[in-house]
């Protein structure tokens, strides 16, 4: 990811490379790009929450639909799993900043493990819920919102997997750790979004 933008030409270059771009902002380009991407991700969730609002509030449908029940406790446990993965993610980043390779690898592995646990528990929940997305509009919303979030967990895990592979192959240092930091921001976003989804779908 760090080489995805225009690279600096070497001092004695054979071929004619691009001039070094002026840095007109103190914000790092990769970080800014990720933040903007997260804004658009929030808006995708916003679309799904609009559907939630219309079906639950405007229609005034009972939540969940009659005969459907949501496993608040298990999902609450799952929330704790996901939130703790944010802590391990932060640990990994701090380790990278301090050149502590052992802790970096351990932190990345722990994050991957916790994130995968969350996904497995979520899929297991789908299997045992006892209702399907086509049973009611509420069920559609439930599967839509949690499924959308699950897809984001999957994307986040994929990004983290790449970063983990690179961490194990000797990349990243105190000077260059954006490859950990940027997917890390995304991972924190996925966690925060889950708290909102959990609160509005399971608790409220």
């Amino acid at each position: 990811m760090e080489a995805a933008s225009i690279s600096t030409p070497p001092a004695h270059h054979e071929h004619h490379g691009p001039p070094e771009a002026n840095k007109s902002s103190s914000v790092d380009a990769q970080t800014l790009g990720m933040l903007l991407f997260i804004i658009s991700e929030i808006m995708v969730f916003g679309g799904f929450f609009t559907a939630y609002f219309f079906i639950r509030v405007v229609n005034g449908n009972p939540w969940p639909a009659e005969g459907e029940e949501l496993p608040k406790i298990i999902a609450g446990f799952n929330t704790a799993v996901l939130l703790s993965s944010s802590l391990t993610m932060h640990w990994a980043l701090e380790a990278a900043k301090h050149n502590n390779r052992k802790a970096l690898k351990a932190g990345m592995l722990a994050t991957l493990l916790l994130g995968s646990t969350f996904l497995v528990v979520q899929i297991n929940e789908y299997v045992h819920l006892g209702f399907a997305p086509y049973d009611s509009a509420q069920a559609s919303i439930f599967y839509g919102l949690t499924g959308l979030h699950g897809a984001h967990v999957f994307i986040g895990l994929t990004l983290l997997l790449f970063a983990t592979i690179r961490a194990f192959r000797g990349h990243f240092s105190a000077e260059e750790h954006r490859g950990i930091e940027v997917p890390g921001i995304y991972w924190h976003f996925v966690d925060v979004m889950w708290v909102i989804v959990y609160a509005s779908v399971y608790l409220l």
Partner: protein
Amino acid sequence: MPAQLKAPGWYRAGAFILLGLAFCTGLVTLIRSLYGYTPLIDGEAITIVSMIGVPLFFLVGLGAFDYWFYWASGKDTRPEDHASHGAHSWRDYFKVNTDHKVIGIQYVCTTFFFMFIGGLMAMMVRAELAAPGSQFVDGQDYNSLFSVHASLLIFLFIVPVFAGLANYVLPLMIGAPDMAFPRLNALSFWMLPIAGTLMSISFLMPGGAFASGWTAYAPLSTTQPLGQMCFTIGVQFAGASSIATALNFLVTIITMRAPGMSFWRMPLLVWANFATSLLVVVATPFIAASQFFVLLDRSLGFHFFDATIGAGREGNVIMYQHVFWFYSHPAVYIMMLPGFGIVSEILSVKSRKPIFGYRMMAFSLLAIVLLGFTVWAHHMFVSGMQSWIRVPMMITTAIIAVPTGIKIFSWLGTMWKGVLHLDTPMLFCLGFLTMFTLGGISGVMLAMVPFDIHVSDTYFIVAHIHYVLFGGSLFTIFAGVYYWFPKMTGRMYSQRLGKIHFWATFIFFNATFAPMHVIGIQGMPRRVADYAEQFAGWNMAISVASFLLGLSTLLFLYNMVNSWRNGPEAGSNPYRALTLEWQVSSPPPIFNFDEIPTVVGGPYEYGVPGAQHAILGGRKPEPVAVGAVASAVSDADTETEES
């Protein structure tokens, strides 16, 4: 395995398409066998999954992800060799290329290709409407024609062609060597032909192409034949492309401006794309969400919009329109603001005067961005939503005309007592000013609830949107393409043909769309293949004018192709413009600048004694470029004499 199949390119892409088809077929069949569904092979399910999966395989095969896969595998970082940067032959335009100039031309050519397809469909629509009764298509096919026409022209032409023009000139204008994320830029371009192909091949689907309009209202769209999925999935690709490009523009503008280029020294085209990109990043995800709902409802039996499954568990139909218009109203500004930027550039250069009210021009763009999010439900006055929402929406819609009016008057102020050069780009700008003002006025009329109820779903609406999208957006696109054609190709187009093209477009455009106001108010419904006898005369006249309008675009095509091949050398700065893209050779060197220029003043100081926009330092590789620097300096001097 032959080497051709290993290297990124079209051979590998072809192989990956086959691989993708096999994968999607296998996946669907596997899932169906696990669930025990019969029949095991379901053509429709396989088609839908393939429409999502095969394009991704295609992109991998073409090489859009090669670097990222390499990165993810964790091997040593390769020094950048710029192998995929810049075009050395026409073949390079058909590859994944990271040069923003190549991508810009890829964009413009692709989008104009789809403009001609979409335009052809408009001709077929007008042929059907030339006389009352049924001519040569039935109702469903007619609906398909105008649906694909609108979808192609909106999602594959107007939205992305602006991204293409800006891709070419924006990094040059702000003094950057390229976009912030060149590989993402290449990926977002290559998603466009995918979206266009999906929408175009929907005619081959059983049951015909999608026929629910470009708005695809549920529950109509959730009960349509398979072709509807081409729209639903095609829009996802176009939307993803749009978001990725917007993000790229924003990061480029924020982090890569040349030294001295503060926000208040940016050319207004850069401002316009900054504003547009904000809109895209925030609004476009909503159309993605709306099409996810349609996809899930239609193919997996979800009930987001199903109001018939019983009280207490029903979906909400109006919700589709809210989610859709929350994107699609800001989208009309996505389709207009970059055009405002183009017009600001051209009017100032061609009037040889500083732009009038530069800061207000920038602020009014931002005002439109903010207000653009508060007006969406004015598309829904007759939808049956809560009626109290109509009043605030009417008021905000009337208010949004104010920043637009500021721009119109600022452009008039720019031209006031200027030395007008009435060449082709300028003529299109003037055409835009008049036509867009007319479209704006009918827009304010439509904001008024009582009038809107009267003309809802009539030809008045058709007239309005074509006055803003054709008379507005397309005129600025023509202006922009003519204006930057010498920069992109190094050659000058024929002014004579260009002017004939303008006058033909201007006259036949009005002959086509102005009468639609009249028959609209008289009550002719839109989106219907047949109409009452009393409208026969006007419709025949409209159809004839529209065919001539269609023919006039061939002049443009001929002028562009012929001038690209045989046109005279244009020189680096044929218009004596001050902005940075004109200070380098035409076409610009492969990495834009040898040394990043230093900006010392505003971009529009035409005729201001001693004013200078930028200093280009460093050794120049070619004599042409040396001349460019000299003319940049002497330009400021001649400006002084001129005024």
